[in-house]
């Protein structure tokens, strides 16, 4: 036997479990405005600091400060706020619909609304988004009808996806929203391919994709970064670090010893880390990356630092693995409250208007739900059974036709 200390296997553990008091005072949250804003033509190696810092615009006095302030006009800010309110109201309603047995499944984006909505505002309408299941805010910000989203969730006869997909796995080509897959990460490199196609054709459209921090562990994350770097694909690769992947904390995805933005460095991509609960910071970072992509300078990896306030999905019970009040202790606040306070600070908003905007959002959701539910909810009414056999192939081969006949439809 050599006289060496035996090895031991390390398994990362989160700081807090149910029953503990979460305390985020040790979390380094840089001052708003403290991170420099380089020229879009910068060499990725020269901005490694941005992968470890955190771009923040809204300060503790609700002011927009520093070089990343996108200087949006108040009307745009109000529209951004409304999109977030509508997203939250939609999530609340659909979550309840699942609880009432009107559908099988739902996933909320509560606390992460800025990630999807601010990015949509910064992108062009015909840029293609390859989202995960938690960016419903993109569709809402782009004005996709809530009614149609609900019909999808209910798998009813007006479901644009003909009852084929699990609730929330939307698809809306006309709204620049790629069909969502249930398999994590698969669409990250597909977005790169879409962007390469735009470059190949000499167009000016770019692509953007989103995965959770947990999903960065899939090989597809590596494929996306490598292909994006090699071909300088005009794509924005977003990692939404909401701290949790079902019951696994971000350390299980490798987040304990480094940031997710810093993964970009080895690929030769710019990696920037952003306060994901700061609408203005998300907007500004997306805008920077979009300009860079549109100037033929290639891809950017953006880590959006946020927190998953609710359970993973309606099938989850987060009280089994994390402290119940962890969301309250989360130091980056609520994206809706932060943008609201900023607008109030500007003199462009007040509590009354906010209250009434929220009521409007809830009412809009309720009205759409009445319309969608009238056509049926899951199990009550469904698209024509015949359609079940369509679209497997463009033209139906004989064996599927025969199976349809066997079923008698």
């Amino acid at each position, binding site marked *: 036997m050599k006289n060496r200390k035996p090895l031991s296997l390390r398994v990362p553990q989160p700081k807090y479990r149910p029953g503990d008091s979460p305390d985020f005072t040790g979390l380094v949250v840089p001052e708003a405005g403290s991170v420099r804003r380089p020229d879009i033509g910068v060499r990725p190696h020269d901005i490694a600091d941005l992968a470890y810092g955190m771009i923040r615009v809204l300060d503790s006095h609700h002011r927009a400060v520093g070089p990343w302030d996108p200087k949006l006009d108040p009307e745009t800010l109000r529209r951004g706020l409304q999109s977030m309110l509508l997203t939250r109201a939609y999530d609340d309603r659909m979550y309840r619909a699942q609880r009432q047995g009107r559908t*099988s499944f739902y996933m909320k984006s509560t606390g992460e609304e800025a990630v999807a909505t601010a990015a949509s505002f910064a992108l062009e309408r015909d840029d293609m988004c390859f989202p995960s299941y938690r960016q419903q805010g993109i569709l809402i910000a782009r004005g996709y009808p809530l009614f149609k989203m609900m019909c999808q969730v209910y798998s009813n006869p007006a479901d644009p996806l003909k009852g*084929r*997909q699990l609730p929330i796995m939307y698809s809306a080509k006309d709204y620049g929203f790629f069909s969502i897959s*249930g*398999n994590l990460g698969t669409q990250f490199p597909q977005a790169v391919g879409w962007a390469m196609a735009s470059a190949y054709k000499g167009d000016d459209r770019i692509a953007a994709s989103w995965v959770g921090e947990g*999903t960065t562990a899939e090989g597809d994350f590596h494929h996306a970064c490598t292909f994006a770097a090699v071909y300088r694909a005009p794509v924005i690769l977003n990692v939404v670090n909401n701290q949790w992947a079902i019951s696994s904390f971000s350390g299980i995805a490798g987040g304990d010893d480094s940031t997710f933005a810093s993964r970009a460095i080895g690929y030769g991509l710019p990696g920037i880390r952003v306060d994901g609960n700061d609408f203005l910071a998300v907007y500004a970072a997306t805008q920077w990356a979009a300009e860079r992509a549109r100037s033929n300078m290639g891809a950017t990896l953006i880590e959006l630092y946020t927190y998953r306030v609710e359970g993973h999905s309606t099938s989850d019970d987060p009280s*089994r693995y994390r402290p119940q009040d962890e969301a309250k202790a989360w130091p980056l606040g609520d994206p809706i409250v932060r943008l609201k306070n900023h607008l109030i600070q500007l003199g462009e908003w007040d509590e009354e208007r906010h209250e009434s905007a929220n009521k409007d959002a809830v009412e809009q959701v309720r009205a759409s739900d009445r319309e969608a539910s009238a056509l049926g909810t899951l199990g009550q009414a*469904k698209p024509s059974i015949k359609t079940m056999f369509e679209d497997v192939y463009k033209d139906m081969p004989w*064996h599927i036709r025969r199976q349809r006949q066997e079923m008698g439809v």
Partner: protein
Amino acid sequence: MAYPQTAPGNGGLIMPTMNMIQALNSAMDTMLERDPNVLIFGEDVGYFGGVFRATEGLQRKYGVTRCFDTPIGEGGIIATAIGMGAYGLRPVVEIQFADYIYPAFDQLVSEAARLRYRSAGDFSAAMTVRTPYGGGIFGGQTHSQSPEAIFTHVTGLKTVIPSTPYDAKGLLISAIEDDDPVIFLEPKRIYNGPFNGRHDQPVVPWSKHPASEVPEGYYTVPLGRANILRSGEQMTILAYGTMVYVALTAAEASGIDAEVIDLRTLLPVDIDTIVASVEKTGRCVIIHEATRTSGYGAELSALVQEHCFYHLEAPIERVTGWDTPYPHAFEWEYFPGPERVTAAMRRVLEG
């Protein structure tokens, strides 16, 4: 009726009732206790105990290095299991849903399945890959698939599918002790109780079923042996997983004296039991949830034809899922229920 298959010499053992999740948990608990080389990992299996709760309490009992969470990378899960298996451990890994096993496909097909052969026995990697599969839960296309034929087609892998709590525990222990890689597919629809496809009837819990009597501690159900659930003279029904309950119900409802065989292991399949039955009955219906074309039923049909041709009195029938992805809204139009099976039985009887 062959429920339960009493474990040899279990007279003195306590026999609590368990559902399938509890039985699987008990198998892993037993093996963690017996063999320090057994360890368990997968997405959410550690502190949380897995999204279906199959590993509940195991991390608390055995510590974080023996039951732990992994990054969300199925290729990584299988690849590290191969490395560990080659070192001499017996990893038992969970892929959260069979629908998510595909990122690991290359590691399974090109690596786990071939390591022994290509190194002429120099290296091998024992491992068990547990994964919930199948429909009946409104899981949509990425929580409902039945990919068993993909694995039976890969030589070098074994494929096992239990249909009762008793078998689930005994087969899982056999799989863990097996020196070859085993794909252990768990019919998730029957985790909590048998299901015969009659979705409008209330769910019957396992505790009402004799096969929920599961001994504490160690016992095995051997791989490669089918179980005759119902003996009959008029035809043979070959089934596995959830579909054995559909088969039993169809047999009762049709009034046809059918022999129902639960294959339990798809590879290596128990050819002797199949042949003996079909030679006796002269007719055969094969049923599975998976899509039809190149499904495992095609292999079974070929085997029966090759081995029993001169005994067959009618063409073999297959009742399967349709050749479409599993559609969310059409759960019960897609799932091959007892009516479709009964119709096929009638055709085979008349044929």
